[in-house]
């Protein structure tokens, strides 16, 4: 006859959850993507916000960070939606600027 250990099942559950959280933090959100855009024509803060607004409208984008000195914009997604170069190029064009490259 087996005797159930007090808290045995909940202890296992906590272990699994802890491992899952640790893995999530180590690997980042599932399918998260970071794109680094080089944008031509970007030369003032007011205009940079116009580009950022267009990029934020793209599905899955949760963060847009501009480095005006280098003319680069980092776009991060967290929903698993990948962004194509065509999408990014169109968004930059809608703001009146030119996409040079995407990494």
């Amino acid at each position, binding site marked *: 006859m087996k005797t159930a250990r007090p808290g045995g099942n909940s202890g296992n559950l906590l272990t699994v959850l802890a491992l899952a959280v640790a893995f999530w933090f180590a690997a980042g959100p599932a399918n998260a993507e970071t794109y680094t855009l080089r944008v031509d024509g970007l030369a003032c803060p007011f205009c940079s*916000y116009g580009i950022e607004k267009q990029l934020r409208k793209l599905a899955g984008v949760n963060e847009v960070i501009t480095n*005006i000195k280098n003319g680069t914009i980092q776009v991060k997604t967290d929903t698993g939606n990948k962004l194509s170069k065509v999408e990014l190029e169109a968004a930059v064009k809608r703001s009146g*600027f030119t996409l040079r490259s995407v990494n």
Partner: protein
Amino acid sequence: MFVVSRAVMAGICFFGMTLVVLGAPQTSNTALPVAEGEYVFRQQVFYKEAGNDPGPGNREVDVLGSLSVLGYGITGDLSVFGVLPLLDKKLAVTLPGGARVKRGTSGIGDGRLFARYTVFKDNAPGRTFRIAPFAGIKLPTGKSRQADSLGLLPATLQLGSGSWDPFAGLIVTYQTLDYQFDLQASYKLNTKSNGLEFGDEARLDGSLQYRIWPRDLGNFVPGFLYGVLEGNLLNQAKSKAGGVEIASSGGRQLFAAPGLQYVTRRWIAEAIVQIPVFQDLNGAALEDNYTVRAGMRFNF
């Protein structure tokens, strides 16, 4: 009195309603874009004084006003703008009997609608070069038949001209991370209303903005503090009343305008003073003393 007054007032009011659009210059336009589907808004207040009356009336004029400008990006290259002024105009004049009287009016002035299209752009890392023509119309939204106890106010003291006046121009902008240069040439075809036709207006505006702070841009997008120097060359033909040219109307003016501008991603704060450098006005038209402008722009 009526004809003489409105004739001399023309000299102090033409170009008073400077075409102000969202962008970098404070007394003219820029070719920088408004993103597709996005709005930008600008609110500018100004105060202008004119005087140096060569006649016995010792006329003095001051105008306190504001310009509200809303811009919308139809595409990255095509934008439309609406401008609505609020004005408070005052004239002090000594009558032939020796009495000093004040006349004036306040309310909505003549609005403007126009579109701007970028026909050429050369974008490169850290700089952009653009050419953008624009065209629009001045609307007769301001009252043009206001009167006081002395009778009908002079035409240029009215809030509006009563006429529909088309205008067009071309803007060239070159912007780098360190500085920006804008040049605008424009022409406004004034039409007749209430028996009066203001002279057509031609103007050439230049603006140079130089980033004076921060010197190092860092890794993100800091606010830029620009030192600004602008120039405005204005020319207006003589006005006509009943088909006859008004002697004391029209002429040429050149203004220099130093200023400051602080630009962030979401808003801009700015101020500038327009000082006359050269004024060659016809007849007894009043000369501008100065115009002070201050404002904010917002990126929604």
